[in-house]
């Protein structure tokens, strides 16, 4: 049995009665009376494994992953940039990692000061008036922003505004967040150039309009040149505009959402601000608002009063969205990142991110269909439609890339582009890496012609071959169970 196969054995399958994974102290106080047996459980069915086994098991599991530290990872809409190690070092400092959220403010001035600075930096970067760091991911930030819009309308006696517009290219969290707040979601189509269809928009600018959620640049990687006009139209109809700032990497130092007329927005610190993605979190989705919406921000925010930092509750807050103050460890990382790059560095981020994406665009558009033939921002959407005509789907192209040692782009998103491959290289990749990736994409196109089966059956070199997702969904096997 080789390492790989061995590694598929689960902890419960490795468990041997009597093994311990750590040694705990003996009880150093007099034993106390226990509650009645009926309140207690006999045992918990947990693994019994030793420390060397645990370390080897998890270490080898990690080795089955692609990651930024090991691979180019151009997963569109996810901004898989390099995650600086100094950020982690900072977050693990005992003065940050070992403080309790309920300690009185006087005991945690350093932590609060950091949060206060970060609020200010994010306000400056976005051109917004106020910031709440409370939301724990982009989607939660969206929900906060949408609730703020809702409460704003209600407070003005405008509670009948129940419609939220969302472009058809939007990320799934946008409509889901709007729906969670109780809004009716109406989809706005994208026009032939990849911009918001103004005519369709005008039609929906009715009195029940609460607002619109706009991703800028859009998930197509495009900056809508009519954006101020779009925002004007919404405002004219009495609506507010939410900016999904997940793609802010394209705009750092180049444009501020506040200047463009957005009312409220979120940022994804785990994208634009380099905090590690951790296999699917943690993230942080701070919300930034114009003065009109600032009083509605989620609680708490940090304020400076008489030279001391305190947690406070915005006047008309939508409330709390978690038990604590936000994903503080993520905030420390983002703060460290902003301070490291500074003004000059942040400007370089957007320049290089956009340049890298356009470079890929220019080198691939003869082989892959480019649905919108114009310069892109930080990411480029291509379509595998030409390859599909040869029998090779986008998914297969993506899987084949894994064999070449590259993580795949985001597939089949945005939904509005057939066989979409959304490629986001980020600024932390070198031209050399881009050239290698381009070469691989071109080689796969050639394989699609000359040896389509090779692509169709990819991947060939990973720990597993193509996995059967249909079976997984049909017969859910979601936990290990003891065989009787």
């Amino acid at each position: 049995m080789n390492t790989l196969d061995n590694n598929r054995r689960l902890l419960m399958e490795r468990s041997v009665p009597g093994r311990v994974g750590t040694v705990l102290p003996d009880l150093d106080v007099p034993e106390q009376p226990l509650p009645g047996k009926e309140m207690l459980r006999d045992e918990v069915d947990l693994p019994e494994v030793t420390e060397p086994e645990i370390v080897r098991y998890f270490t080898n599991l990690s080795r089955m992953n692609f990651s930024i530290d090991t691979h180019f990872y151009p997963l569109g809409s996810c901004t898989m940039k390099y995650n600086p190690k100094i950020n982690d070092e900072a977050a693990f400092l005992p003065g940050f990692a070992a403080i309790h959220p309920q300690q009185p403010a006087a005991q945690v001035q350093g932590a609060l000061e950091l949060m206060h600075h970060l609020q200010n930096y994010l306000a400056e970067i976005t051109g917004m008036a106020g910031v709440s760091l409370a939301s724990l991911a982009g989607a939660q930030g969206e929900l906060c922003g949408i609730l703020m819009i809702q409460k704003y309308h209600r407070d003005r006696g405008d509670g009948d505004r129940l419609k939220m517009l969302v472009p058809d290219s939007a990320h799934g969290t946008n409509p889901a967040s709007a729906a969670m707040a109780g809004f009716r979601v109406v989809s706005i189509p994208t026009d032939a150039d990849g911009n918001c269809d103004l005519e369709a928009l005008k039609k929906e600018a009715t009195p029940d309009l609460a607002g619109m959620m706009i991703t800028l640049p859009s998930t197509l990687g495009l900056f809508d040149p009519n954006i101020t006009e779009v925002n004007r139209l919404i405002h004219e109809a009495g609506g507010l505009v939410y900016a999904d700032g997940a793609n802010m990497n394209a705009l750092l130092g180049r444009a501020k959402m506040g200047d463009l007329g957005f009312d409220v927005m979120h940022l994804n610190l785990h994208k634009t601000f380099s905090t590690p993605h951790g296999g699917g979190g943690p993230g942080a989705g701070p919300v930034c608002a114009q003065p009109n919406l600032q009083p509605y921000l989620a609680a708490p925010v940090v304020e400076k009063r008489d030279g001391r930092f305190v947690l406070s509750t915005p006047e008309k807050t939508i409330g709390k969205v978690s038990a604590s103050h936000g994903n503080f460890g993520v905030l420390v990382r983002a703060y460290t990142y902003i301070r490291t790059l500074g003004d000059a560095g942040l400007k370089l981020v957007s320049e290089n991110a956009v340049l890298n994406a356009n470079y890929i665009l220019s080198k691939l558009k003869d082989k892959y269909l480019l649905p919108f033939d114009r310069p892109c921002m930080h990411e480029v959407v291509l379509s595998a439609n030409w390859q599909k005509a040869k029998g090779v789907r986008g998914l297969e192209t993506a899987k084949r890339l894994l064999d070449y040692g590259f993580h795949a782009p985001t597939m089949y998103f945005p939904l509005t582009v057939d066989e979409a491959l959304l490629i986001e290289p980020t600024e932390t990749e070198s031209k050399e890496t881009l050239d290698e990736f381009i070469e691989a994409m071109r080689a796969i196109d050639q394989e699609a012609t000359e040896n389509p089966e090779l692509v169709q059956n990819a991947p060939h070199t990973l720990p597993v071959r193509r996995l059967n997702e249909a079976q997984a969904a049909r017969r859910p096997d979601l936990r290990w169970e003891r065989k009787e």
Partner: protein
Amino acid sequence: MQRSAVSENGGVSFQSHYMPNTPAQRAEMLEALRLDSIDRLFEDIPAEHRSPSLNIPPPTSELELRAELEALAGSNVNTGAYASFLGAGVYNHFIPSIMKPLITRGEFLTSYTPYQAEASQGTLQVAYEFQTMVCSLMGMEVANDGMYEGASSLAEAALMACRVTGREEICVLDTVSPTYREVVETYALPQGLKVSVVDSEGTRLPEGAACLLTQYPNFYGYMEDLAAHKVAAQERDALLVVSTDPVAMGMFRPPGEFGADVVTGEGQAIGVPMSFGGPFIGLFATRKKYLRQMPGRIVGRTVDSEGKTGYVLTLQTREQHIRRERATSNICTSQALLALASAITIAALGKQGLKKVAELSYHKAHYAASLIGRVAGYSFPIRGTFFKEFVVKCPASPRVINERLLESGIIGGLDISHVMPNCMLICVTEMNTRHEIEALAGALSEFSR
């Protein structure tokens, strides 16, 4: 501090160690694009809004920044250097040394949601392990790969109960953490759901209740009578939702055994640093029959084209990226890294260790209570069985007492005067030595009356 590298006209003369492209390479790439300036790529931005000023400090060297950060962190009173009796949902429990070196392996730390299953088997298998562990802890049938944290996890459970039952009233037991209730309200009220508080004594739910939300142990540290709550819920065909502390599960009968329909919890207590409140890991488990109403990521076991075992994200049609406005939740990026930290810690504690951590906490907390109970002027306003936290009524303001304790190197319990006058919520875990406990009791006795 570096000299600013942004010139008057917004140009940048700064080479960042995070960005490989050199000016020469950028020129080369621009040439390939047949562009004379990078500004050309930003021309879709309305002219009047292009390249605004950016009032952010200049780049900082790692050397200087590290010193600044250490000073900032060093200015906080940290629980490593003090004896801490703060709990209230965030706990100072033992974290084994293997956690950090494992979760910081780049392959775990810098990968993302495992959309490409074949290139993410590590993350996926960990999720399957985590789901298994959560089910074992809670005594439930299925669990997801984690939510943001405990309070929003409970809120999502309430929303799920409304979906499952088609009802609109969420009942929250009055012993549930006030903060948790606030979060439930933030999630539930705007969409028109009703949140009502019910009395923990002789609990009866209103007709049409979708669910009863309980906490076990409750906010005050005491074990709830889940059997009675189950009866109350069943009477109305409502779901019983229980928010737990996973450490208590090392010792107390799990909610699953009382017929809980959804069990949530804050997973921080096992393996996650307190970090001023986050990132943490929300737990979420339910019964099989509600699987397709569950929010969050779920990982399933399957086979590859050659029949080999492998893992994938599954039941994705519940999720926002497929189902959009009809998804079970808007959650996308969650807290996978903390689920990993928790899974590693649960593995290290194992069957025996989790029990021992629970028992050590129990005995130490009860020992602390027995000492404090002997000090004149302190009393216990709540009867019942507590786990590792208990409420003490003090002879002076807890705020004043805590200031005094800090001088003795002790971070006192949570001041809950706003809900129970002059009361303090004291938490004791295996991290508190006998010496610390006795020092606490000693210091409290200074206020004895």
